[in-house]
């Protein structure tokens, strides 16, 4: 079966005052319909840029330098702005991190929902209204009919995110891009929203691209995970493999730095030393070698390829490439404070 979305060797650059900086390079992945794919990584690793490029929202300075984004039969890097507008909201929709500001304060909830529905589903105002009420109902908003008249300021963050989800899913998109949908919500609401997205996904066969830096969210919801570092995909695996046998030292570091309840009081939380290299000064060779505890001289010279080590598990690391079967290294240990 053909995948719903196929991103192939994507390279994105942003123009600055003097020159341009490459923000995302050699990013390839696929999304099948109905599956949830999680994209994790630190801030600035290119998660959001990748998702914005799918929507054609890179802005004036951003440019796709290379590669293709195949959605169905169309290459989204080549379609016209007009076609892109038809796709947005209808076939691909997106929800953002900040529900508090994602709704226009001067229009009622109903008004904003009806606008999108009328535009894409070509319904009459009355039908669109009924449909909007049904959608609000579905996302668990009580008294949906009355809520249509309510203005965004009367709703809490969780409620607003529900409205955003209702809007995003109203046109039954094939793909939903959720850019940190729960980051701004408190933890109990987070879980509700994730659960809601999953329930609705089952109904509508929508594929979800979940962008987050929260591995807990990934573990709860994703089928497959893509780990990004410094604008590249460093590891791709299904969620169980990734959590059980992370191969890339960066993934291992990320997993090790999750705090655990069973930690002793005097144990220090593991962290990956250093920070993400700036896009202007990418290290030569493997981009992670400056922070990698297992770096070898070879890592500084040449960049590893994203290599498949088993069915559905790809890693970009020399250590793995040399000996795929060997469990790369033992997990980094938490060090004691004393």
């Amino acid at each position, binding site marked *: 079966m053909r995948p719903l979305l196929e991103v192939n060797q994507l390279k994105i650059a942003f123009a600055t005052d003097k020159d341009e900086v490459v923000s995302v390079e050699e990013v390839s992945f696929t999304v099948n319909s109905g599956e949830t794919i999680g994209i994790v990584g630190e801030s600035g690793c290119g998660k959001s840029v990748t998702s914005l490029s799918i929507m054609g929202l890179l802005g004036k300075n951003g440019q796709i330098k290379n590669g293709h984004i195949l959605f169905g039969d169309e290459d989204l890097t080549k379609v016209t702005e007009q076609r892109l507008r038809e796709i947005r*909201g209808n076939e691909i929709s997106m929800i953002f991190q900040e529900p508090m500001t*994602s709704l*226009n304060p001067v*229009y009622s909830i109903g008004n904003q929902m009806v606008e*999108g529905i009328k535009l894409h589903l070509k319904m009459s105002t009355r039908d669109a209204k009924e449909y909007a009420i049904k959608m609000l109902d579905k996302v668990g908003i009580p008294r949906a009919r009355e809520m249509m008249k309510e203005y965004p300021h009367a709703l809490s963050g969780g*409620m607003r995110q529900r409205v955003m989800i209702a809007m995003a899913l109203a046109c039954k998109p094939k793909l939903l891009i959720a850019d940190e949908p729960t980051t701004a919500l408190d933890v109990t609401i987070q879980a509700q929203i994730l659960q809601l997205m999953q329930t609705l996904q089952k109904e509508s066969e929508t594929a979800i691209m979940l962008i987050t830096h929260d591995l807990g969210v990934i573990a709860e919801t994703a089928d497959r995970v893509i780990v990004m570092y410094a604008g590249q995909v460093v590891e791709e695996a299904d969620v169980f493999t990734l959590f059980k046998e992370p191969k890339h030292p960066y993934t291992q570091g990320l997993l090790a730095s999750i705090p655990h309840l069973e930690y002793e009081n005097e144990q220090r939380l593991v962290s990956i030393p250093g920070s993400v290299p700036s896009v202007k000064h990418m290290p030569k060779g493997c981009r992670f070698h400056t922070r990698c505890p297992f770096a070898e001289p070879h890592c500084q010279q040449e960049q590893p390829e994203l290599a498949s080590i088993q069915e559905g598990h790809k890693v970009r690391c020399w250590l793995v490439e040399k000996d795929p079967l060997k469990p790369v290294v033992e997990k980094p240990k938490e060090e004691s404070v004393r």
Partner: protein
Amino acid sequence: MPLLETNIKKEIETPIAYSEIAGEETPFQLIVKRFMKHRLAFVGSLFMIFIILVAIFAPAITPKNPYQVYEEFSAPPSAEHWLGTDQVGRDIFTRLVYASRVSMLVGLGAVLIYSVIGTILGAISGYFGGWVDILLMRLTDVFMSFPGLMLILVVVSILGPSLLNIIWILGLLGWPSVARLVRGSVLSLKHVDFVKSGVVLGLSTPRILFQHILPNAIAPILVQATFGIAASIIVEASLSFLGMGVQPPTASWGNMLTDAQSLTVLTSQPWLWVPPGIMIVLVVLAINFIGDGLRDAMDPKALK
């Protein structure tokens, strides 16, 4: 984890507690309420409503014709002529009433024209940026650097003084300040998340700009426009006083003041120039109070 999951299910199945939905007032009601509390603004708006009604129903308020010449000229106030007659012999009270039409037309007309132009240009400039922005903003710079009254005088002397000309000239010259204001608001609003979600929803650019961004920028435009009405009324009065505005026999508060150019009138016939002068002061004051009230009422930082 299991604990969390049961929690989720419970929360999803039972509707969320309703305490989160607060505030029964819509933002509009809140603004009206705050405006009413601003006493001067409230009084000012009552006065303006009165003046507008007077302007609309002028024939019903005074039975006389503003152009009719009576036998006595420069007559002091009497039972027949409440505010006396002017140097030609026309009834001053009647002319005062009819002149309010001119002032209202100039004030509202000019401001309407320049607010529309300024809003559209400012919105386009702010939203699209780049060379469009540079071009439009340099154009506003050019317009702003004209000495206003001089230019108006020149244009009026070319086109000929008339009410309609005055409105158009004021309208076509006033837009730069509005354009700057709107550009500023749009610049800050275009990066707001709901604009992004509009784009993501597939809305067209004009729709996003004019239906989603502009309504959020309306407050400063409205305040600016209110003060603009007062300013336009003053400019019209000055022009008419100088004889470059509304031409007699059409009555305007400004050209009624022209009589005061003579010293005898100024010193011994105050009924000729005091009433139109008072009207100008009161109307401009009232409008400025309304503007103040609106600005305070629409200020998002104001507490109550």
